[in-house]
């Protein structure tokens, strides 16, 4: 589409888009760093995620501020209006993804500190699917792609399957090794956060479809 006649308006929309992608990159990094801490028993990585969450929270407020500014100053219409509304929604989903990355990091810390077998390998398939879906949803945002959004929504099935499998295996282990139940419970919480991150990636994809087509495909 052509650029807006009013350069300030175009600049504000670009700033909003770039801000959203920057926030998305921070969230994706937080997830990857948290998982690195978890699988690699790297406690520094866990602290990095926990400390970095404030930055993600600030971005959520910044996106709200940019979006409100555009609504107030330029009264966007049509696709521009949908883009601003969706950016605010997407930043909300990203912020919650960031919170789940923090949960992963906090629980990982406890797992790292635990004695005995850690069984982190049980969550590897789920973590791999989770990384993939987050990456794909962010690509959908950057390309404003309806196709990539639908692919993201499809990918959540694999996340759910892996989540169920991991939870089942961990639950079985709790029965077999009650002494490790405290540590294993942390794996259940981490798995749940990864599954929720998948759901949030779906929410983001739904928002992108709304921008691209004006169709509300939620629920």
């Amino acid at each position, binding site marked *: *589409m052509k650029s807006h006649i009013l350069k300030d308006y175009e600049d504000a929309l670009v700033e909003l888009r770039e801000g959203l992608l920057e926030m998305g990159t921070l969230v994706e990094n937080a997830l990857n760093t948290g998982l690195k801490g978890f699988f690699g028993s790297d406690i520094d990585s866990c602290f990095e995620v926990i400390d970095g969450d404030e930055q993600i929270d600030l971005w959520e407020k910044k996106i709200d501020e940019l979006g409100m500014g555009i609504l107030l100053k330029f009264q966007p219409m049509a*696709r521009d209006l*949908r883009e601003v509304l969706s950016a605010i929604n997407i930043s909300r989903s990203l912020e919650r993804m960031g919170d789940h990355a923090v949960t992963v990091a906090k629980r990982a810390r406890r797992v790292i500190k635990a004695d005995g077998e850690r069984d982190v390998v049980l969550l590897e398939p789920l973590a791999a699917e989770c990384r993939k879906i987050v990456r794909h949803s962010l690509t959908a945002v950057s390309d404003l792609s309806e196709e990539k959004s639908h692919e993201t929504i499809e990918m959540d099935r694999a996340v759910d399957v892996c989540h169920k499998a991991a939870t089942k295996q961990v639950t079985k282990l709790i029965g077999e090794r009650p002494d490790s139940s405290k540590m294993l419970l942390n794996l259940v919480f981490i798995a749940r956060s990864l599954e929720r991150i998948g759901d949030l990636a779906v929410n983001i994809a739904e928002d992108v479809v709304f921008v691209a087509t004006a169709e509300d495909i939620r629920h």
Partner: protein
Amino acid sequence: MMNEELVVDSADAPEVAEGEPIIRIDDLSFSYDLGSTDTLKNISLDLRAGEVTAFIGPSGCGKSTLLRCLNRMNDLVETAKVTSGRIEILGQDIHDSQVSPMELRKHVGMVFQKYNPFPKSIFENVAYGLRIQGVKNRGVLAQAVEESLKRAALWDEVKDRLDSSALGLSGGQQQRLCIARTIAVKPQIVLMDEPCSALDPIATVKIEELIAELRRDFTIVIVTHNMQQATRVSDRTAFFYLGELVEFDETSVIFGNPTQRQTEEYVSGRFG
């Protein structure tokens, strides 16, 4: 000639059920210079009774020209000519030799961009059309004037000075007076050509509120350059560009998710 919209009562007009087409424009082309250039090109559009329809588009797109076709105001331009198509209002071809512009304007009133009260009293401005209809009874006139001023949301502001000059009113009040003058003779259709463009924001809001009230009893067609105004006051919006109708749909569609790329670019400020 400019005041003929006030000429006679239109109580004898056929009824059109709400939501049914009251104005049917079929393949209309129109030229200001005897057909050498068409200002409007093959416009087809049905406007429904009881709705507010907004015409939008960049300057020169033909939206005011089309509005002025609807009560044959363009007849005043000597070289103006409908080069093809027809306009049917209340089931009648308005260019039929049996229909005079005066007859047409019984049913189709008009409010202009620049408020234009007569240099008479407030009372006489509103009573003008009724007097031309032959109403002489002071009581009947007084009642009609009061009712029209109330419907135009002006009564409370002027009831104690009905005999004062209309020219002493503020711009917003003068425009509401012009609306009262138009509706006093009970047309079915009210055309508004940028009725708020000369008004401050508060006076504009008052006119918009008035349009929301009047929509219950009148079919309203409004030309506006203010897109936020179109979104606030209208049920449907028609977007014109270079004399052509690009898109016509519910206002929420035109401003939320238009079908045509040109409409999207115009409403989101990417050309015009």
